[in-house]
């Protein structure tokens, strides 16, 4: 692994809002096929890192290198097209579209037929339509019984909270990414569903071939899935390593529990 170039490299990534330094000279590498967790207390800048990587914010300085190219400053849709897809912590599904359509809509970046071709039903448009529909079913099949069959044509708003989280992941998969950024995928799930999700993220790598970066507060999930954990506080990297290394790190405990906890 070490000989290959990492899939994603963040080099000295910096972002501030007014006087508030949200991300401060952050260096993180994500290798091909790895599952990396980003942890840290609320307001540590985790989601901002995702927003920077996906182009929703432009970094003040620093580089975001994906597959050897600097993608900082590109429009979000162009970045997604290159192979980085994300889910949203606050759930931003296309609520009034059907479950299947949500995934199909995400295929925009890797399809090419024009509006005119669609109107005239030319072969390429028809072929792409078939392929997208099939692709959407495959991605939804990843979630087993949860998003199967009769749910495909239901509007997304009819889904339960946990299913919405699953659909967010399926939609991100619909863009054919190499790197998946999951923002708190287990938030609001019950213990059984959380367990299921932990397995799912493992399968995303083994069966789906995705490299995954996860923001998560549930330490059981983090423990269960992570090859490597990166801990942030006030936008700075305070620890990096295996789950055990990070959890026993003094600065991480301090960030989560306060200075006194470190002393004991």
């Amino acid at each position, binding site marked *: 692994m070490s000989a290959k170039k990492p899939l994603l490299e963040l080099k000295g990534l910096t972002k501030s809002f007014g006087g508030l330094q949200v991300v401060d000279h952050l260096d993180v590498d994500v290798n091909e096929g790895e599952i990396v967790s980003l942890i840290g207390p609320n307001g540590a800048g985790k989601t901002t890192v995702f927003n920077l990587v996906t182009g929703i914010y432009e970094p003040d300085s620093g580089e975001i290198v994906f597959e050897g190219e600097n993608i900082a400053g590109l429009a979000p849709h162009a970045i*997604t097209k290159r192979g980085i897809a994300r889910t949203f912590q*606050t759930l931003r*599904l296309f609520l009034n579209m059907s479950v299947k359509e949500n995934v199909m*809509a995400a295929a*925009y970046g890797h399809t090419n037929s024009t509006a005119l071709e*669609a109107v005239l039903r030319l072969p390429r448009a028809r072929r792409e339509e078939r392929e997208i529909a099939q692709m959407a079913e495959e991605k939804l099949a990843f979630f087993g019984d949860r998003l199967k069959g009769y749910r495909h044509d*239901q*509007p997304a708003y009819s889904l*339960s909270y946990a299913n919405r989280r699953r659909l967010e992941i399926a*939609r991100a998969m619909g863009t054919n990414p190499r790197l998946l950024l999951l923002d708190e995928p287990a938030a609001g799930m019950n213990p059984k569903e959380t367990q299921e999700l932990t397995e799912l993220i493992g399968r995303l790598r083994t069966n789906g071939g995705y490299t995954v970066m996860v923001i998560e507060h549930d330490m059981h999930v983090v423990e269960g899935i992570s090859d490597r954990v990166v801990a942030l506080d006030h936008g700075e990297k305070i620890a990096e390593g295996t789950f055990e290394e990070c959890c026993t790190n003094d600065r991480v405990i301090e960030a989560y529990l306060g200075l006194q906890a470190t002393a004991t």
Partner: protein
Amino acid sequence: MTEPTEPRVGVDDWVAQHEERLEERKGLVGLLGRWLAYAPAPARLAAFALFAGTLPFWMDRGDLFAYGIFTLLYILLGLGLNVVVGYAGLLDLGYVAFFGIGAYSYGLLSSEHYGIHWPALASIPLVMLGTAAVGLILGITSRRLLGDYLAIVTLFFGQAFVVFVNAANPTVHGKGLTGGPNGVVDIDPLRFFGYELTTRTHQYFFLLGTVVVVLTALHFLSESRTGRAWRALREDPLAAEAMSIPVNRLKLMAFAIGAAIAGLAGCIFASVLTAVSPGNFGLPILITIYAIVILGGIGSLTGVVLGAIVINISFQFLAPENPQSNARVLFFAVLALVLVLAVRQRWLGAALVGAVIVFGFVTQAIVEAVAPSWSGGNVTEGGRLADVVQNWVVIPEGHDRFGNFAYVALVVAILVLTRLPGWWRTAALVPTVYLAAIVWENSFVEQPQVARWILFGSLLIGLMTVRPQGLLGTPRVEIV
């Protein structure tokens, strides 16, 4: 209903029974609704085209113009607006300007105004490209604006167009650049390969063909990646952008395609009417087109067709040239509908309608006995209900001023009504509704122009109360 089984994790029963609940709606309305919702699109299109195709064979020329041609024009306009507002979710209030630009461009390219007489095969594509380009320019300048702000800028654009054609360089070319307030007159009919569409029937069939082609094209477009991307950006632009959809480019595309369809409608409008003037492209038509799209159900092609039919027919029904009987029947129907809807229980609504009728006859009888001159006025002539109304509504001899006072009293009565508690309000409904009838018979019925808009408004409000998503729209949910 199925026997409730044990609860299953992750299975939403309410949703699973969605189809069943749809089936529950009984009767003709339910049947029609289900057919419209589930019939395959080609069947719906064929049914529409077949029915519309028979129109010229049983309607006289005047009706074909008023009901047929205008409905089709409204459908075309609604379809264009549906792309911008329904699919892409952009609140474009300048839409009617594209219609105007199309009509004026065609007029100027095919009349003695500049002495140019292009065949339609050359001018229509050119005009559509031109309006699409203007749409693109409006889109580029306002693509970063959201919601209300976009609405304000585009509304300004629409109004600027009217001002422009009214006042642009009156001295140029003798008649002015655009003909000023008189507009462009003596516009050629559509001409293909030397063949001119001069009769109403020919124009109607050409328009019907155009509508069918545009409907088909938009159906395919909405089921394509472009259509899905539009709906995605309407739902959540940020998420759409993050899902590899170039939001700005798609917004511009929606603007351009909507504008091109409006331009096409403008060409046909100008050729059919043979004259255009600034007054054709003001706010009333904009409101009408919006009403069509909203009434039909935003984003639904069948909805646009249905909305255009309903609105144009009620408009022609209420047209000032028509006898007032139509307006009167519609007014009392709407009044009864409002009464029944205002109270939840059906029996109470029916009882209230009965109470209002009795209240009217009693009041009329008392007034006639006490002060005969107060009920000596004659009902405005026309229609089936006139005789009944004569004995039901109090109409004083010189009732102009009485009508105005009654109107003020009605406003006060409605204000009081909203503040009354419980049963008092239900009881007060009866005299208030009767007062509304008095206002109508003494004042509005003689001013068809005003009456028309008031009825149109109440019709819309009534329908939107019953079905906020429009006739065929899917109920939209905004829960996060």
